[in-house]
């Protein structure tokens, strides 16, 4: 137990991590560096290897290959209890036979820190549960248990705090509130947070950096704004928000942009926003960046225009309306229109054109497989 514990966060480095389970590979050659003090989110669908990654960092599983460094020190072969890491488990895993206070003091007692009870009480006060210190975990609500789990991890001032979908079991309102609190606590204590989640809103809302994981690999990593604005793969463009995708071959190219031909319509994307400049590529645009027009508009070269098509579905979501427009030979396109008092046509069956600025388009490195999911609109044309 000679581990040195630091008061501030440490950086985490994963080098060539590979994890195989009997019958499948959970993680394939993962390289990752999380700077000290950062709120880092690993985002991905269930089964993508994100929880496995977290368990490897915590020391609950051993990697098949690769190295794990925390604060520059190789911890690959140390046991879970020797690592300066604490986890907020998805199930909370609060000890049912101990009071809330004893739960929080557990880690401090194991490390023989002076005055564990006072420190545990202070940590409970931080999450505003000081008055429930003597209760058993089973007597608390889900949200309260979640905060106890957080206090139990935070009180140890770990170099690295791991969060395994800790907000998954909470209802929407409480989840929002906890997201804000978590972020505030992270800024206050300055620890490195590694947050694993499948909730893209949660990841974008809280994290400084988001890594989107799929099938044991990191597809793309960056700030939430950058990932959303400029997804590089079909998976990222679908998983992080919604996208309209168009597939076509590059037919025109100039100094700053390339254009593809989608069933006779020209769709242009800036070169610096496209991963590939040749051959058949997928170009996308976010539904809220697209507009529709009742009459064919006269737009300059800075715009893409497709249509006409027919509105086949309208969904009212409060702040916006979601329109689904069927464009012959191109497919279905989703457009979000803000409800700001001057709503355009809202009738089913209306004939419309769809446009968006060229600078809002993005070109992807791969092509969509023809298995559209229900939340995503794809338009794929056979050429």
């Amino acid at each position, binding site marked *: 137990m000679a581990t040195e514990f630091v008061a501030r966060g440490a950086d985490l480095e994963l080098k060539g991590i590979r994890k195989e389970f009997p019958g499948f590979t959970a993680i394939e050659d993962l390289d990752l560096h999380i700077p000290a003090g950062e709120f880092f989110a690993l985002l991905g669908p269930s089964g993508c290897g994100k929880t496995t990654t977290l368990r490897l960092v915590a020391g609950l599983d051993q990697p098949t290959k690769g190295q794990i460094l925390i604060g520059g020190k190789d911890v690959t072969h140390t046991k879970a*209890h020797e690592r300066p890491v604490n986890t907020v488990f998805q199930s909370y895993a609060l*000890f049912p036979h101990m009071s809330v206070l004893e739960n929080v003091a557990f880690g401090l007692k*194991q490390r023989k820190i002076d005055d564990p009870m006072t420190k545990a009480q202070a940590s409970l006060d931080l999450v505003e549960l000081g008055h429930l210190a003597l209760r058993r975990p089973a007597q608390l609500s889900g949200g309260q248990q979640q905060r106890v789990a957080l206090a139990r991890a935070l009180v140890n001032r770990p170099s690295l705090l791991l969060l395994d979908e800790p907000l998954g079991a909470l209802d929407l309102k409480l989840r929002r509130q906890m997201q804000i609190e978590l972020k505030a606590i992270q800024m206050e204590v300055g620890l490195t947070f590694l947050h694993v989640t499948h909730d893209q809103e949660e990841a974008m809302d809280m994290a400084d950096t988001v890594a989107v994981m799929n099938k044991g690999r990191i597809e793309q990593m960056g700030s939430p704004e950058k990932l959303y604005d400029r997804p590089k793969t079909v998976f990222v463009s679908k998983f992080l928000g919604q996208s309209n995708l168009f597939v076509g071959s590059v037919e025109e190219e100039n100094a700053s942009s390339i254009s593809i031909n989608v069933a006779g319509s020209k769709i242009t994307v800036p070169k610096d926003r496209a991963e590939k400049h040749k051959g058949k590529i997928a170009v996308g645009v976010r539904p809220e960046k697209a507009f529709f027009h009742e009459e064919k508009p006269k737009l300059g070269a800075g715009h893409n225009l497709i249509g006409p098509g027919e509105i086949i579905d309208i969904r009212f979501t409060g702040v916006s309306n979601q329109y689904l427009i069927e464009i012959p030979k191109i497919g279905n396109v989703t457009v979000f229109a803000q409800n700001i008092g001057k709503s355009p046509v809202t009738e089913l069956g209306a004939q419309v054109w769809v446009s968006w600025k060229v600078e809002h388009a993005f070109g992807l490195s791969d092509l969509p497989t023809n298995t559209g999911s229900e939340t995503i609109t794809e338009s794929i044309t056979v050429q």
Partner: protein
Amino acid sequence: MAFAAFSHGGGGSKKSAAPVSKGSGKVALLLLLPGLFYLAVFFIAPLFSLIATSLQTMDISSGFPIYNYGFQVSNYIDVVSQYGPQIFRSFFYALLATIAALIISYPLAYFIGVKARRWPLLQGLMLTLVIAPFFISFLLRTFAWKQIFSNESWIVSGLQQIGLLSPDQYLVGTPFMVIFGLTYNFIPFMTLPLYTTLERLDVRYLEAGADLYASPRKTFMKVTLPLSMPGIVSGTLLTFIPIAGDYVNASGLFLGSTETSMLGNVVESKFLKSYEYPTASALSVILMGAILLLVTLYVRKSGTDDLL
């Protein structure tokens, strides 16, 4: 109250009781009747009879002992002063055998209930092996141990040769042999309740322990052991109580001798050989009272109420 320790789910019946209509209440009462009748006839009535017998007076005026109902409390004082060593031995042997059974059963139950979870077939096989001895008569098995450890056996001669036993020392008839037999015969009663508790042990608590800087040993002491208390309590009760009243293992016909006789052996000989019914009854009442007292204290002390 003490019996609540045997059940896992029966605890908070008050909270979970669904509102029942009057009609079904009557049905429930009707269904209870056979049980209540059974208890009254086979438990409460014999209990009063036993207590009444334990207070009988002896009349030898006819030259032959005749027992009359009375209120002779001195019967109790007599048996305690006369059979103090046997009473002490009963509880002492029961304590040692229970501890031995716990030490042997816990790792076994842990392996079956936690480690073997991924292989249900292995789990089932091992559980079957735990109860397999029941397929052979208890008396036969105990007698088999007497043969195995008999004075002529290679085990005893081997122990004598390596100096663990002196040349004139044997195993059968010693307290060791009796405690060995008791432990052996009651291990399944310890293993099964331990298994049912450990089988439900959530290993995520153990991961949380490791995550919070507790070494495997500490995690066991602070997390696994407290969480398995319900199984430990039921297991120890299910072994301690019958062992304290056992008369087979300690009997001279099996593994014991006159030096190892327990309370049960005295009761047996008084009831069946010398026909001293008040003495035998008083000893039985003492055994029952002592067990009830010990069990109550134990369940209170172990504080497992909220885990049951």
